[in-house]
């Protein structure tokens, strides 16, 4: 069952991929009408296999939920080289299985939604093949039993993300964004890979079970790495976290995520909101037995997470592209998850990961529905007044935003609340830092969410007549998956809170997450002062109120503010100038350096002194001798013969003969 859940998407993807070429050859042979039929077949196959995979995943989940941990399923050995042994295997603990369920369910909804959203695209089969391929890699990532298979999934989702961001390959901006996403992720993978090497160096294994069993014994070990003696688990965790930062778009390595919105909207929902970007969070949770022994690494995770949460929230407040607002929002919410992990509230982080998957993909698909209605317009300044025209989408956006802003009883309320309480209850400096930044970001979250709703759906319509005339509610095939996700955004939190972080949490998670006895933030989260409990929802409501004030009741205010604080506004609008900084400091110098090394060192220095210098000398000599074109081959053969002659002489002289 488990194997089916993971491999069905791969099969669907491969079949759909083959159909792409089948379609091309049919069209080339004059069967113009084949396109629709083949596209339909590949939609049925990919959606069918995804839905089956989802069903299988739910069964596996129920089994593990009831019976406890399932044994891992080993498929076959991948690499065996001395003590370095690892297999293709599927891990059967609740953490993996929970992720498998979330990924397959969200992914099948997005597969179905794509039938409607991509209906007029010319490469439907290719799109479906990529989506399923992505899902397969993601499932390999979360179900892995060792670090290397995780890395396989990790890089694989990077590949699929690259293909999907650049799906419309004739757009230069899409190609650029695709490369940026891959390369920035590789910078993170650089850290992840070094982390894996260091783990193997320390533990002589890359299998989770072995590593986790030995973690306590190695908790005081120092290793000599980069010429310094350093606490082994700290450096390992920091390296792994660099990988997590890349994948989960944390401050510094976040630059690729907003650009990734170049991809079709279902991609943004699936990859850049619900699943792939949460891989970093998942990885840290998975490696909790190591992170728990490094206070330094945990503090770094907390600070980076909290800083990202506030940074991205500030930027989201001024963006005009509807998808970019949600993209920065994703970045910010991932920051919440990380600082939860940093205060050892892993289950709270996972809880938010799951609820976020539902409400954020709902928001993205809702935005997609808006864009679909507006004939591919993404600029909110050209929207407005849409709520009467697309009421269903409007309601879904409300549900998603209420969940995002953490309003009771929507699912985001439960998960965000417990994170902020845990941050407070950590009773540490970094915990307080995270708490206050988290509270501020919660205010901004509510503010930008309703800014989005009001700009898009209320006020006077700012689109031209032609676009407005076209505005229409999305077809059923798009509304249906939205409904499922909306139900998730409504009920996942209230239904599962007791299992994730409440009274049944210990039985639910069993041994899949490890928390050191000295880290009691989550346990103490229920004992925080009453104002800590109520602050998030109050602050959320006031964020909504401010948005109404600024964009509904006093529409002059935003303009006045942005011209009043021109510098701040520009700073935020340009996303704190990260892109400009990187281009100037890294990208351009790399190209210049490459060109310089090529021309100066390879061309002038090495060749000049070496072969060209010798060539000049030889030409001079040979001109004197008078046989310019004697041919190099003869030179060469001559030298060889000379060599053999010397050899034979040598032996004769030495008397071996």
């Amino acid at each position, binding site marked *: 069952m488990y194997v089916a859940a993971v491999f069905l998407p791969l099969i669907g993807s491969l079949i759909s991929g083959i159909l792409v070429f089948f379609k091309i050859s049919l069209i080339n042979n004059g069967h113009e009408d084949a396109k629709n039929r083949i596209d339909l077949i590949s939609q049925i196959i990919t959606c069918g296999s995804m839905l089956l995979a989802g069903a299988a995943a739910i069964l596996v989940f129920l089994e593990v939920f009831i019976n406890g941990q399932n044994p891992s399923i080993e498929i076959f050995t991948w690499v065996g080289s001395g003590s370095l042994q690892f297999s293709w295997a599927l891990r059967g603990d609740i953490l993996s299985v929970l992720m498998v369920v979330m990924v397959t369910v969200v992914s099948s909804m997005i597969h179905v939604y794509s039938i409607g959203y991509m209906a007029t695209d010319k490469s439907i089969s290719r799109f479906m093949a990529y989506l399923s391929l992505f899902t397969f890699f993601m499932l390999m990532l979360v179900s892995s039993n060792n670090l290397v298979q995780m890395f396989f999934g990790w890089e694989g989702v990077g590949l699929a993300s690259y293909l999907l961001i650049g799906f419309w390959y004739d757009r230069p901006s899409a190609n650029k964004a695709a490369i940026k996403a891959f390369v920035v992720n590789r910078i993170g993978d650089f850290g992840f890979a070094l982390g894996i090497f260091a783990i*193997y160096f320390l533990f002589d294994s890359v299998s989770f079970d072995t590593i986790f069993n030995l973690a306590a014994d190695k908790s005081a070990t120092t290793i000599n790495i980069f010429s310094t003696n350093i606490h082994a688990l700290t450096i390992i965790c920091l390296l792994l976290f660099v990988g997590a930062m890349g994948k989960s778009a944390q401050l510094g390595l976040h630059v690729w995520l907003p650009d990734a919105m170049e991809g079709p909207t279902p991609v943004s929902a699936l990859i850049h909101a619900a699943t792939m970007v949460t891989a970093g969070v998942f990885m840290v949770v998975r490696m909790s037995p190591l992170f728990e022994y490094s206070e330094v690494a945990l503090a770094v995770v907390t600070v980076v997470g909290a800083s990202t949460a506030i940074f991205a929230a500030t930027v989201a407040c001024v963006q005009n592209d509807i998808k970019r607002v949600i993209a920065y929002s994703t970045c910010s919410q991932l920051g919440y998850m990380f600082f939860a992990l940093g205060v050892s509230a892993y289950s709270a982080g996972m809880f938010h990961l799951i609820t976020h998957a539902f409400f954020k993909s709902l928001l993205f698909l809702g935005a997609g529905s808006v864009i679909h209605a507006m004939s591919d317009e993404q600029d909110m300044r050209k929207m407005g007044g849409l709520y009467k025209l697309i009421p269903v989408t409007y309601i879904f956006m409300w549900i998603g935003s209420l969940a995002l802003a953490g309003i009771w009883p929507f699912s985001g309320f439960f998960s965000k609340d417990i994170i902020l309480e845990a941050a407070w209850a950590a009773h540490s400096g970094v915990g307080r830092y995270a708490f206050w930044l988290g509270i501020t970001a919660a205010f901004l979250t509510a503010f930008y969410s309703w800014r989005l709703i009001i700009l898009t759906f209320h006020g006077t319509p700012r689109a031209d007549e032609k676009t407005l005339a076209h505005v229409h509610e999305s077809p059923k095939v798009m509304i249906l998956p939205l409904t499922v996700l909306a139900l998730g955004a409504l009920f996942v939190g209230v239904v599962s809170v007791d299992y994730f972080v409440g009274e049944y949490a210990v039985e639910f998670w069993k041994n899949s997450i490890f928390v050191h006895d000295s880290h009691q933030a989550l346990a103490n989260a229920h004992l925080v002062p009453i104002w800590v409990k109520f602050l998030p929802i109050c602050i959320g409501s006031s964020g909504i109120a401010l948005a109404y004030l600024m964009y509904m009741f006093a529409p002059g205010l935003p303009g006045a503010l942005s011209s009043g604080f021109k510098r701040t506004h520009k700073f935020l609008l340009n996303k704190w100038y990260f892109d400009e900084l990187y281009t100037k400091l890294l990208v351009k110098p790399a190209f210049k*350096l490459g060109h310089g090394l090529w021309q100066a060192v390879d061309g002038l220095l090495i060749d000049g002194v070496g072969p060209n210098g010798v060539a000049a000398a030889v030409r001079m000599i040979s001109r004197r001798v008078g046989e310019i074109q004697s041919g190099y081959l003869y030179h060469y053969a001559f030298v060889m013969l000379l060599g053999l002659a*010397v050899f034979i002489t*040598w032996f004769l002289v030495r008397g071996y003969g």
Partner: protein
Amino acid sequence: MSNFPWLSIIIFVPLVGIFFILLIKGDDETTARNARAIALWTSVVTFLVSLGIWINFDNSTSEFQFVEKVIWIPSLDLSYQVGVDGISMFFVILSTLLTVICVLASWVSITDRVKDYMIAFLFLETLMVGMFSALDLILFYVFFEGVLIPMFLIIGVWGGPRRNYAAYKLFLYTLAGSVLMLIAILTMVSVAGTSDMTILLKYDFPASLQSWLWLAFFASFAVKVPMWPVHTWLPDAHVEAPTAGSVILAGVLLKFGGYGFLRFSLPMFPLASADFTPLIFILSAVAIIYTSLIALAQEDMKKLIAYSSVAHMGFVTIGVFSGNLQGVEGAIIQMLSHGIVSAALFLVVGVLYDRIHSREIRAYGGLVTRMPKYAVIFMIFMMASIGLPGTSGFIGEFLILVGAFKVNTWVAAFATSGLILGAAYMLYLYRRIVFGELIKDNLKKISDVNSREIAIFTPLILTVIVMGIYPSLFLDVMHVSVENLVERYQSALASAEYIPTVEQ
């Protein structure tokens, strides 16, 4: 079957093919057609026979297998002695496979002096297989240097406009190394009293002599790998060589250096190898970063891939001299993988060159619209080249880096940074050629890969994927031999109470 002369058959069948090609008579067109057919049949038969050594290979011993010994010049104690172990076996198959690919790849693109061309390739095959299976030092030298003769011809006769310069550069670089290596070989024979490599592999040369011998071999191997800074012949040779020439050059000839380090430097001069390991590490790490940066700035497709080869071979030398099981096995896998992947990438370039006759990156763009199959093939090899897990490229680099990390974390970190740059230059190349809008007029009628080209790429794709997903197929063959090699290396260091100067 143990007495069946597998290796000699593999070595001599191409010569039989040459004999038949020489017999061809008739007008140009008939000659060309017959020469192609004979070359193809010969290379296919050779390849199939070479699979026999894999099937009959005994994984449980580190001794040489399929050994044949014929006394050649008794007075000099010279013998024709061949055999393979877990280290060299796959290189023999790599050579025979790529020869088939080369013949097919030249099917239509070579129209001039086809007969001579096919002879050159078959002769090359004999020499390559001979090189990897030679167990006599002198025989090894003859094959090792002899390979360059057909290679010169292929570049010099069927090459591009600057072929003389390229061939000349190759000649100059290899000349210095080969003279030094010959002197070293003579010294070894006179000190040990035999040229039999099976004995030499167990012989302990005095420590002081080891350094000199190591350096002399290094001079030759470093050029072949090629290591920084003696790599500048490679981009020129590739650019000027015909497609099949690049395939053999990148696929097999570059492996001579790495194979040499494994066969000679590490087991025969272990103390010197340990002493010089920092030098290798520094040169390799520089090569990876330096050539990757240069590859970013290239405008010529072949040059770009040539520079990327230098970076990938930098991983190989790091793996070899990490001196542990993972590093060495990684190096062998990396060499095999690079043999397939870089060969395939040159073929990918060749497909375009055959159609448009330009290697300039800017001459292309938007090809996916007309050539979707081509785009997929290119994508697979690009991903293998940047070491995506699930492809052969990953297994090699991963094992090497794991091995290197145990010995020197700095080197591992610098080398790992090559993964970032590698992704950057390959994706940038792919984007400029395959993606974007198809605007150029001469590309609007370009045709997708045909069935001959698909037949060329299919075995390469399968190898890349199988090696990436189930590398045990290859690793199991080499385990015992590599363990034996590493043990010999480490015990030599231990008995000399050698304290590594390598920093952690």
